[in-house]
């Protein structure tokens, strides 16, 4: 670690300073959002970029493999052609709260999918993507509303996980150092995703393009993931 870096425990919680001064200044009570990754560039190499992207709405959808009717409704709701196959994701467009929301639907298991708002739109954004309530309400209406016997489940996990975007010429190398998936340019392409580990933390890795990836991790491990990614970029400057 460089001398100027904070410990894992200290990094990643950057909003408290500003918050406490506000409170001390006696401003009216307001709950502020915190970020789970440091703002700005995390990479130590010019050939790769590590940036936190948050918050993003995320929903875990459980629906039975044999529920064809329900799956068709789901596809319609999310505006994608079909549900993703094993370890893939598809693009989605949902009209919600007057906004046309771009997102992706990732496969997590045979009866488990995750909807996530598109990372690209929210890199360095000041506006947060918080459409979970609307999406959940919409899903309830469409999928459960008229079909009492349909067994589905939607759970808001927007705050459970946070996403890091890793991009650049050396992005694959940085990820391949600590992830046991086969990330060769021909083996892991745009549209692929996979749950695995990075170092010792569980992640969900997805490939947006040849040089752009999204790493999703539980917020409790976000400090560890950030530091490990940063460490892995050191030797990529040469």
């Amino acid at each position, binding site marked *: 670690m460089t001398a100027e870096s904070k410990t894992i425990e200290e990094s990643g919680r950057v909003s408290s300073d500003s918050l406490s001064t506000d409170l001390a200044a006696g401003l009216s009570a307001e709950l502020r959002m915190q970020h789970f990754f440091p703002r700005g560039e995390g990479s130590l190499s010019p050939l790769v970029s590590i940036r936190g992207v948050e918050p993003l709405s995320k929903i875990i959808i459980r629906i039975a493999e*044999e529920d064809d009717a329900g799956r068709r409704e789901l596809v319609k709701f999310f505006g994608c052609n079909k549900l993703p196959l*094993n*370890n893939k994701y598809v693009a989605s467009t949902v009209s919600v709260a007057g906004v046309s929301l771009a997102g992706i639907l990732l496969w997590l298991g*045979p009866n488990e999918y995750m909807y996530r708002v598109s990372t690209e739109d929210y890199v360095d954004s000041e506006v947060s993507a918080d459409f979970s309530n609307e999406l959940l309400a919409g899903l309830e209406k469409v999928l459960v509303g008229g079909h009492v016997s349909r067994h589905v489940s939607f759970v808001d996990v927007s705050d459970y996980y946070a996403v890091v975007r890793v991009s650049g010429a050396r992005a694959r190398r940085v990820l391949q150092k600590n992830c*046991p998936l086969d990330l060769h340019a021909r083996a892991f392409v745009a549209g692929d995703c996979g*749950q*695995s580990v990075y170092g010792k933390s569980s992640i969900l890795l997805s490939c947006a393009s040849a040089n752009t990836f999204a790493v999703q991790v539980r917020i409790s491990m976000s400090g560890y993931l950030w530091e490990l990614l940063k460490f892995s970029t050191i030797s990529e400057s040469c």
Partner: protein
Amino acid sequence: MLRVTCPWCGAREQVEFSCHGEAGIARPADCSSLDDRGWGEYVFFKENAKGITLERWEHIHGCRRWFIALRDNVTDCFLGFSKPGEDFPQVPSSYRQALSCASIPMPRSAGGYGKNDKKVVLKR
């Protein structure tokens, strides 16, 4: 390190998995009808065979699915995988010939996977 094939995700490194011991031990349909010894055998006793065994694996850092693997625990060679509810994987004939193994393990109980669920009719 072994390479394990999840029936849903394909071949992955062992670090993503957790092994949960012997497969094919179904929960008895009526637990109260067993005597203490019979219940104890269900809870505690395993074959623990040397050689080819049927095991349950969980893809913990992945799709979180449980599946069955047929593994030779002497050579650490995986011989087959199956999803719960499918037929158990069989020992390939070439392996059988090459090692001339006499006995292939049979799972202790053919039940499980909903077969013992009295209330629900199993639909495949």
